[in-house]
């Protein structure tokens, strides 16, 4: 499924990285611990997290993730947004909890 479709269906706010919205998403991973994401997130996958600091962009970039979904309207550091724009990695924001977001993604067929 195209990332753009997921953004539409879940009404996510694109905070940064508009250039990366055409990625074909293959799956996802949810964690607030950086080392867990480092170990478990897959290439072209989504990372659903409560973290909003700069280092989430480094993780996404190193793992070639499709996008980062930041839940519960957690504040994303401006430096993170700038870096995400630079790298073309979308940061998507939502008021929903990680639990809800993952549940809806699963319903939509993003199950890997």
């Amino acid at each position, binding site marked *: 499924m195209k990332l753009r479709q997921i953004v539409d269906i879940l009404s996510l706010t694109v905070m940064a990285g508009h250039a990366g919205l055409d990625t074909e998403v*293959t*799956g996802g991973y949810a964690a*607030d*611990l*950086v*080392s*867990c*994401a*480092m*170990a478990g997130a*897959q*290439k*072209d*996958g989504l990372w659903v*997290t409560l*973290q909003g*600091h*700069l*280092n*989430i962009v*480094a*993780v996404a*970039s*190193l*793992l070639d993730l499709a996008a980062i979904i930041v839940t519960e309207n957690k504040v994303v550091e401006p*430096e993170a947004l700038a870096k995400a724009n630079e790298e073309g990695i979308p940061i998507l924001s939502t008021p929903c909890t990680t639990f809800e977001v993952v549940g809806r993604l699963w319903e939509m067929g993003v199950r*890997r």
Partner: protein
Amino acid sequence: MEERRQLTRVEELTYEVKIEQVMTTDVLTVTPETMMSEAKELLRNRRISGMPVVEKGRLAGVISTEDIITTLELGKDVAVREKIGHPVRTCFADEPLAQAIRRFDMYGYGRYPVVNRRGRLVDIITQGDIIHGLLRALEADYHEEETLKHEASYLLEHVDSERTRLFLSYRVRARDFVHAGDAARQIKRALVRLGAHPQAVRRMAIATFEAETNIIIHSNGGRIAVLIQPSAIRVRATDTGPGIPDVDLAMQPGFSTAPDWVREMGFGSGMGLANIRRCASTMHLASIPGRKTCLEYTVIPEKSIALREQLTRSQNDFTRNRRPIIANGKDRPAQIDEPG
């Protein structure tokens, strides 16, 4: 400055490919004594539009459908000899295609007889032959490029030297979370450019990120040095700082001494060293408590692993009961699954 036109790859190929490489070789000929009606049948059966006329191995001329039609229209059948008065333009077999193309442009005939340097007819060449020949050459070109790509051709493996090594070094500052991951990212980019196997790149990216954040979080600053060789990528992450009193304990998944403010950022799950061990082919952690820490690990690209296993196997066959000299599969890294 004079503007120089760029040569396209197709133009280049017209100079690289020789006429003899695109000919079809099974050429149909007639002699000067062949009757026009006979020639007509031959052309019709073969669905071709012209034939060389050969006398005792030497090219005497060319006869085309047009010649035949105009003759036969007059209602009388004559020998081919009567109609080939004009001199024949030919190409040499060892000339480049460009030469033939120029001829086609200049004189507009549909085919040219191809002769060797002794004047013997070897074939005819048509514009169709040229197009097919160029397409084949382009395909071969493309194929070569593809195989190079698919072998994930590791640039360093194609450099001939007794010892090829590329050394990269990055300074890592304590508590500098703004630049966390920069060294890992730059190393990753370098490896991608070198054409390293995607699996090797991924292992290096993960392990180096963890080593880098450990220096940032737990030490007073240090350095990450990478030695890239065709057979292995070696990393040494050194720092000065508190060191690690119990290395075995630190290696245990879940063990962490990270302060709360670091944990709030999502670090400090105690999974970093475990991640490194999972991604690296070999790993060694040493520390002088109160002074410094040195972490070393290597990532061995897939190709080299395959080679090493092959070597191990032949060593086994060779030495039978003796222990193989080359390391066994024990320190082979766990497979990191890539989707798709």
